[in-house]
């Protein structure tokens, strides 16, 4: 059972990242290769505020998230909006460029060392059914749950959430309903960065923060999104949990060094055999 608990913890993180991928994918059709960097930046922000500026956590947490949100918006304004030839290849490359820049800046600012972040709650292990779970993990799982519900509320109940969903379904129809699609695209980058940063903050006491964390997290979040079917909100969550659990299961069977390789093997198999995701239905394509 132990691998199940640690799987859920990392799975919640992947789920948050996957939702970020999906939000951007739904509004723009772009896979944002820089999504993982926002997770890393979330961790960096919280580290700086807690230990370099000595801001209490209650304040630092929202400020870090807000910072990531603004950065996400800037990211869209700088990199995405002005791409002249909006071919898929160009959009892929520009987000790769963005991710390298963010990672490089993080390295310049915070250095190459791993930064330690202390637990936000008193750290202890709790015995549960056939295993233990740490309070840090509980925070991760709890916050992910809360975020999922808040997002669901946003998308289902609020006017702006509905505008987002309208844009997902049909941009032109949304624009003739009076929705500024460009703004929605911009904010979707903001929200995705915001979600990434949440993941980055809550996971920082467990994995600590290094400037190069982003690639791995990003890729796994993407795998989670693909597993659940790209663009699907709940698919992302399921995919994330599934990936986390199967990954820690593999880690308990194979040498732990191969853990990440297993994650990628899973992506490859899904991409090859069910690119529409485990739960998605195949779309009829027209020539």
């Amino acid at each position, binding site marked *: 059972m132990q691998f199940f608990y640690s799987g859920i913890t990392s799975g919640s993180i992947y789920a948050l990242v996957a939702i970020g991928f999906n939000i951007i994918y739904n509004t723009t059709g772009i896979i944002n290769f820089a999504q993982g960097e926002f997770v890393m930046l979330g961790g960096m922000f919280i580290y700086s505020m807690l230990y370099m500026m000595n801001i209490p956590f209650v304040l630092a947490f929202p400020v870090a998230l807000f910072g990531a949100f603004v950065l996400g918006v800037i990211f869209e304004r700088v990199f995405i909006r002005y791409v002249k030839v909006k071919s898929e290849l160009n959009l892929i490359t520009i987000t790769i460029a963005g991710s390298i820049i963010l990672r490089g800046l993080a390295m310049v600012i915070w250095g190459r060392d791993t930064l330690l972040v202390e637990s936000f709650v008193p750290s202890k292990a709790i015995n549960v059914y056939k295993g233990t779970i740490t309070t840090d993990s509980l925070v991760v799982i709890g916050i992910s749950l809360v975020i999922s519900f808040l997002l669901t509320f946003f998308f289902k109940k609020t*006017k702006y959430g*509905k*505008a987002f*969903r*309208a844009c997902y*379904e*049909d941009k*032109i*129809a*949304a*624009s*003739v*309903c*009076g*929705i*500024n*699609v460009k703004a929605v695209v911009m904010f979707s980058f903001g929200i995705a960065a915001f979600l990434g940063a949440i993941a980055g903050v809550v996971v920082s006491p467990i994995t600590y923060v290094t400037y190069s964390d982003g690639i791995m997290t990003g890729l796994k979040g993407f795998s989670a999104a693909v597993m659940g079917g790209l663009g699907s909100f709940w698919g992302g969550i399921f995919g994330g949990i599934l990936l986390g659990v199967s990954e820690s299961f593999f880690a308990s069977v194979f040498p732990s060094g191969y853990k990440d390789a297993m994650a990628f093997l899973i992506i490859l198999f899904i991409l090859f055999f069910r690119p529409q995701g485990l739960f998605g239905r195949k779309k009829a394509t027209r020539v």
Partner: protein
Amino acid sequence: MKMLKVKSLFVNYGAVEALKNISLHIKEKEFVALIGSNGAGKTSLLNAIMGIVKPKDGEVIFNDKNITGFPPERKVKEKIALVLEGRRVFANMTVLENIEVGAFTSDNKNFIKRLKFIYDIFPVLKERSWQPAGMLSGGEQQMLAIARALISEPKLLLMDEPSMGLAPLVIKDVYEKLLILKETGLTIFLVEQNAAAALKYADRGYVLENGKIVLQGKSKELLEDNEIKRAYLGKEYKEKWER
């Protein structure tokens, strides 16, 4: 009073000329139809008026205000609404949510009142308000698309092929709803391939052929004009091109 004026509008897609020197006008509370066959440029015209495509040249004037080049969301604020070709309702959202999205720009105070007004005209939408829009029939989706446009309280309603893919009885139903709306003071401009239906209900008509307006006049007169058949089913230039 002329509500909408289109002055020598040109639209190009790359090297293709879709519209060539289109001028037309719509008076307040009028019901005008622009008819033409497939590929004549009808949708391009509406898209250019609404701002979905940028015209190459020409002007669109609405209530004496030059609105050429405004993006669609600003046109909505100017009280123009467009019902897109093929309806394009948000299939995974409920009927009510679709209408709510349509009300994105308007303030919340009037919403309930407007909703009641819309439900009175389209009672079927009230019955189905919790269903996903994708589950509706074609005719119901068309009603929903109209409702979604109406909730923003437009003064001018633009419609792109309301009859597309619908059975004759349903088409009749849709047009009768439009007549009711016209009674309430709405100005309607629609483009339509189904000339017979459109001209039966409209006050005035234009005929578009190959991106140019070739004919205009009172609907009744147009209906009787043999030229229309020609615009749809081809000229007799067999002699001219005889091989």
